């Protein structure tokens, strides 16, 4: 069942007077519950595509339909509200808020939802438990290792039970062993919770957890590799 449909997506932006076009007429479909790895050289449009899927950026031309909603028509505010409901985003450099504890970082997305404090507490605790970091709930980011920070970031991304989990090189700043553990965690989220995951990566090793690998080049899809 198709969750994400990109129809002839083009994205332009300007750097000074120069027009940059990272995506040119991209057509793409991603199935619900799949684990997709986006690969390609620098400048191929991977991160631009991820930002469009996240509703952080908007398409210049074409249609972007996610879960039957035409998000290319959404206003800035509606996109923000849609993001809160549908998207979980994992950054390469974790991007935890330094003055908040692990628990409080995970709680942030839930502040946008109409749920009471008890339910918030339950969901944050569950998310921290799911990523195996429940014992560190009261620690600040500076008191955590890189792998632990990324686990907290994943907990933050999944706590509101989003439709799609987007990950921008989630193991890019981690050693091999920790990176493997993080990829195992993402895979288990896909398998146990049926989460749809779209991950940008430069590392071919990490694609082994994905069931679909998309190769982008010069803003276009040049190869789609389905592994299962």
């Amino acid at each position, binding site marked *: 069942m198709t969750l994400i449909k990109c129809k002839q997506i083009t994205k332009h932006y300007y750097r000074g007077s120069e027009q940059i076009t990272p995506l040119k007429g991209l057509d793409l479909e991603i199935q619900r519950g799949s684990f997709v790895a986006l690969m390609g050289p620098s400048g191929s449009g991977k991160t631009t595509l991820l930002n469009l899927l996240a509703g952080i950026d908007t398409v210049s031309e074409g249609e972007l339909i996610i879960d039957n909603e035409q998000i290319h028509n959404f206003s800035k505010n509606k996109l923000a509200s849609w993001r809160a409901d549908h998207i979980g985003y994992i950054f390469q450099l974790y*991007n935890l808020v330094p*003055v908040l504890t692990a628990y409080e970082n995970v709680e*942030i997305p839930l502040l946008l939802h109409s749920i009471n404090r008890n339910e918030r507490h339950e969901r944050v605790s569950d998310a921290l438990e799911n990523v195996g970091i429940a014992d560190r709930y009261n620690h600040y980011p500076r008191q955590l290792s890189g792998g632990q920070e990324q686990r907290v970031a994943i907990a933050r991304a999944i706590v509101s039970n989003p439709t799609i989990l987007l990950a921008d090189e989630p193991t890019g700043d981690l050693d091999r062993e920790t990176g493997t553990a993080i990829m195992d965690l993402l895979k288990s989220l896909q398998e146990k919770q049926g989460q749809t995951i779209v991950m940008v990566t430069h590392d071919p090793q990490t694609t082994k957890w994905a069931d679909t690998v998309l190769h982008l080049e010069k803003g276009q899809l040049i190869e789609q590799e389905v592994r299962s």
Partner: protein
Amino acid sequence: MKLLKVVPTVLKHIKRAPIRSSLTLGGIAVAMFLFVMVESMRIGVKEATEMTANETTLVVYRENRYCPFSSKLPQYYEQRIDDIDGVSSVVPIQIHVSNCGASLDVVTFRGIPRDSIEHAIAKDGTIVGGTLDDWKHRGDGAIVGKGLAARRGIKVGDRFSAAGIDVFVAAIQETDEAQDKNVALVQLPFLQESARKGGTGTIVTQFNVEVDDASYLDSVASRIDETFAHDEHPTATFPEKAFVGRAARDIVQLSEVAGILAWGALAAVFALVANAVILAVRDRVKDHAVFQTLGFTGWLIGWMVMIEGAAIALIGGLLGGAAAYTTVKLGHFTMTMEGVNIELSTKPSAAIIGIAISLGLGIFAAVVPAIRLARTDIASCFRAV
């Protein structure tokens, strides 16, 4: 609801940057302390000198004299004043002060005829310790205003001395009137004898005249001055508050100049909050981009910045306002000049106004950074880090 749910997060940001927050809050608190102290002084001056519609008291003073040591009027004027139409009572008063210039700790003695003491007690005055009879039965008895009693640590049964006058504290008077809460009322003959300066027995400093109706103030004042215009001791008669304003003109001018300090304090609060908010926004560019990625709208993040500015200003304002209010309340500061008393207002209004202004300035200082941040898109926030 979202607007309220993010407030604890904003407060955590303030609390968990303790050095920056303490420095900013300290600066705001000091500025607001200064502002509230100056405002308390200004309100005190205004209350002491601004006429109200129901004023019925006139003060008859020696013409062209400004100090109680130089104002000398014959006590027999009392009867001639009392005969003027519209006058309901006259109290001859001898005033003796420990210092004629401007000072924060002056003891003012008022000599009152024994039978006129009921007229000399403040309109809102109550005797909270001792009795009027105790005062009447002791020649050296004093009814001490509560402000003076608190300042000097005096209680009923004590003796105290000032300006060469030694008195027994027969009663304590509680009143909101600055002119009454900071004086010691003693019997007129006792003060005339004890002071022995500028004559005794038949000389007083001033007459306090009550008129039948507030509308008679001006006409009765003119009649009194006309009556004595060709006497050896011509008079100058003023409504009581105008008299206070005239006698304490230097303090009035000082309070006007102090108003500039108050404006400076407000400018300091604005600058401190604006600086704190701008630094916070710059420091947290990445955090704000993360918040937006998680679904926060630009306006919600702008709201968080506004809350931060408001919270810093409110907390600083509360600290400074409360400290100033406590200082004024416990300090019983009274500025006395030429025998009249102007008290720093102990009403909470100065502190409340200060805190409200601080809050308003905090919000105002945060508006521009908040709007700018609300309009910034996520991608440019990430590029900025």
